[in-house]
């Protein structure tokens, strides 16, 4: 029964592609198109939930496409980590999709080729799913290319000047990273004669250490560009902010995480061992610090968020470089938490932009008065990102700190210190955005956008009661008309002067609900942190052991050989956290329990 569901795994890629084809056909019927897209994603999400449920206990399962056995055919592998990533990514995508559809409806005046948005979006989802499911390097490459090509289109949607400018940088950098990855694949194939990841896990270990080093670093550089780790992160804050809010949201949530996913696979499955771990620790440290310092200098909320995104990739690399169950488990949790929170923040920024007409914190003010709901929706994920105690951001960070303290060497301590500092600076950045755009009075703002002033007046009129209303409406029609005629350039259309009241209209419900949903989803990680953390630790143990994955793809003999090459976790000096003597008691006891039961599980998996 379990196997039946898992053998449907390729549908996670196929469904979105078929949906995209259908959505292309329905180009002229926007409503049918939206319905198709939403249905497709919902179905994919359901399928992925089933996959997660199937792998929750059993661990890794492989699907051989066309019945071609492992080293020869195309393999798709669902293990705990990839199933979790699939579910979270589809959930995010669903929320963003609903949001985008609602925004498309409210922003109809702004034009733009909305008709290609939905099919492209589905292709992006297919690419992401393919990358998560890929069992061989070339299929991973194809997954990357599918999602990247879709992302090129989404980033330059509408083809405005700034977007084309940002798009050029993005496309060139992405293509170069893909080429690096492809070169690495070619070389790996030349050296080993296989590109199946499980097969590689066995065969790469037989290569000369220097050759291994070259291949390893080439893969890491390719993935590092996609994941935006420090020296390779320059392109991200430059290109993401110009895209429409929902696009940026899904890029920020998913695309870099696909890079992180690939790095995790490289580090655990293909090249285990601590060959480059000290390098990764440095990279993590610099990513965190440089990223967050960049965020401090920005004034545009989207740019601030892009820089914090870069900065927080550093946390994930930190956990990977620890190469311990604690560290990797925390990374898995962190990735999931960060996808949700970062996407949520970008969606809220979209709401702010729509309500106030700008996302520049120098021009914003009084938003808390205009829309307390947006204020709350921004506040919760912002605090979550900053790592304030009850939230999942705190739990993820404490897990990493625990791992760092457990590793107990100089660099690990430096990383612990850096992660605490980065956390504080993130809080500072978020509070700066919050106080400026939500708390300060709009009178203090130098150039408030006309939309913001209008919205504020409308709010005040509503608050002071009905008597004020006629006056308010009068001012509404007057003020912007006078202001607008002054600044009207010839290119502006006349319809805007005629309908000034429309400017002050709030965001559609369709935009607010998915945002609420995402924020709630982020909060759910806090509430269910215990089971989720236990699951992350199990996923991390699976990945560090490698045997469940190799066993699923190549059978027990290869797995036994891989284990022979490397030794068990304890022999490799990787601490399995079943002592549970540090950190918050409740969480730890949950984690301790699950660990005990889990190690038994995975050895069982290795034997049959």
């Amino acid at each position: 029964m379990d196997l039946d569901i898992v053998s449907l795994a390729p549908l996670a890629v196929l469904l979105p592609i078929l949906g995209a084809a259908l959505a292309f056909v329905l180009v002229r019927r926007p409503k049918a198109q939206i319905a198709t897209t939403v249905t497709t994603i919902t179905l994919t999400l359901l399928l992925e939930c089933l996959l997660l449920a199937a792998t929750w206990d059993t661990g890794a399962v492989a699907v051989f496409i066309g019945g071609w056995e492992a080293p020869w055919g195309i393999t798709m592998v669902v293990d705990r980590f990839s199933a979790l990533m699939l579910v979270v990514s589809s959930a995010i995508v669903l929320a963003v999709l609903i949001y985008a559809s609602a925004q498309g409806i409210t922003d109809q005046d702004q034009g733009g080729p909305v008709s290609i948005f939905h099919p492209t979006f589905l292709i992006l989802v297919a690419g992401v799913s393919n990358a998560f499911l890929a069992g061989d390097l070339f299929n991973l490459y194809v997954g990357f290319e599918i999602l990247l090509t879709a992302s090129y289109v989404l980033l330059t949607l509408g083809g405005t000047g700034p977007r084309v400018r940002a798009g050029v940088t993005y496309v060139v950098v992405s293509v170069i990273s893909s080429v690096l990855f492809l070169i690495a694949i070619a070389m790996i194939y030349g050296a080993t004669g296989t590109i199946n990841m499980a097969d590689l896990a066995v065969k790469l270990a037989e290569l000369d250490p220097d050759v291994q080093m070259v291949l390893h670093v080439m893969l890491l550089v390719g993935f590092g560009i996609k994941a935006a780790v420090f020296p390779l992160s320059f392109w991200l804050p430059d290109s993401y902010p110009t895209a429409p809010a929902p696009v940026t949201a899904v890029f920020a949530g998913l695309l870099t995480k696909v890079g992180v996913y690939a790095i995790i696979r490289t580090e655990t499955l293909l090249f285990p061992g601590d060959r480059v771990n000290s390098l990764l620790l440095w990279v993590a440290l610099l990513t965190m610090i440089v990223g967050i310092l960049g965020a401090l200098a920005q004034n545009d909320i989207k740019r601030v968020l892009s820089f914090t995104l870069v900065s927080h990739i550093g946390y994930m690399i930190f956990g990977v470089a620890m190469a311990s169950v604690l560290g990797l488990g925390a990374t898995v949790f962190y990735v999931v938490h960060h996808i949700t929170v970062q996407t949520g923040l970008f969606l809220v920024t979209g709401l702010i932009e729509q309500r106030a007409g700008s996302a520049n914190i120098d021009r914003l003010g009084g938003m808390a008065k205009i829309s307390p709901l947006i204020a709350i929706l921004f506040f919760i994920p912002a605090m979550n990102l900053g790592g304030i105690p009850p939230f999942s951001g705190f739990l993820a960070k404490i897990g990493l700190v625990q791992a760092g303290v457990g590793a107990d060497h100089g660099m690990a301590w430096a990383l612990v210190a850096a992660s605490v500092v980065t956390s504080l600076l993130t809080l500072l950045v978020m509070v700066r955005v919050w106080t400026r755009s939500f708390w300060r009075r709009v009178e203090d703002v130098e150039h408030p956008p006309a939309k913001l002033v209008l919205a504020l007046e409308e709010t005040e009129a509503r608050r002071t009661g009905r008597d004020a209303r006629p006056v308010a409406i009068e001012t509404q029609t007057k003020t912007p008309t006078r202001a607008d005629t002054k600044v009207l350039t010839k290119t502006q259309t006349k319809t805007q002067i005629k309908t000034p009241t429309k400017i002050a209209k709030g965001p559609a419900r369709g935009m607010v609900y998915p945002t609420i949903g995402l924020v709630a989803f982020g909060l759910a990680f806090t509430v269910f942190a215990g089971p989720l953390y236990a699951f992350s630790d199990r996923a991390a143990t699976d990945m560090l052991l490698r045997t469940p994955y190799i066993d699923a793809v190549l059978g027990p003999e290869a797995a036994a050989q891989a284990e022979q090459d490397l030794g068990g976790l304890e022999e490799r000096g990787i601490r399995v956290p079943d002592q549970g003597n540090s950190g918050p008691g409740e969480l730890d006891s949950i984690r301790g329990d699950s660990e005990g039961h889990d190690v038994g599980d995975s050895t069982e998996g290795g034997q049959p």
Partner: protein
Amino acid sequence: MSVNIVLLLVMGVMYAVSIYLLLERTLTRVLLGLVLITNATNLLILTMAGAPGQAPLVEDGVDPSAYTDPLPQAMTLTSIVISFAITAFMLGMIYRSWKLGRRDEVLVDTEDVKVAEQSSFDAEEDAELLEEPSEFLEENEDPNADYEHATAINPSTGALAVRHRADGTVKVKTDANRHLPGSGRRSRHEPEEGEHPVGSLGHDDHLPDEDERSGSPRSRPRGRDPKDGE
């Protein structure tokens, strides 16, 4: 594994040329660089297949090592298709960039420049406030009056609006309409709206726009809206 030296040399030259081209600012050259670098990589994959041999169609009685390895060919085909798609897309973008700006170059990010140029001093965040021990200061005695961000327009007293500029100068403005209750705030915004027009955030977009309209009537971008810059 035997290697074809000619293929290797060609590949090396292609990589060298493509890297040179990719470092240019001109988009067409960057595109050529991308084409070359992907094709050089295709050659690399082919080289990795090892010595050429018989076509990989299984026949009886042929030694398996006599066949060419088909997998790299499949990979090369895939990557050719991908690079084809990307080339087409890049061409589209270059054309768009040319239509928008009449420039075939990678442009500078205006937001980046703005951030780089901003002063490290921010009146609102960094100003040192003088200590004021008394709770009952008169308006004009308040040592920090300058920092109270022009919020002090009080319709009844008619106090001056003092505004702190980013460059450190202080702008003092009397408001003609300040005696009209409720209208003070709005009228104060008006001149600023004029200084900073709604559509002006897009900066240099306006000029090319004019160009286009004079060029051909159909070239006006569909998805553009003066509000986009915000």
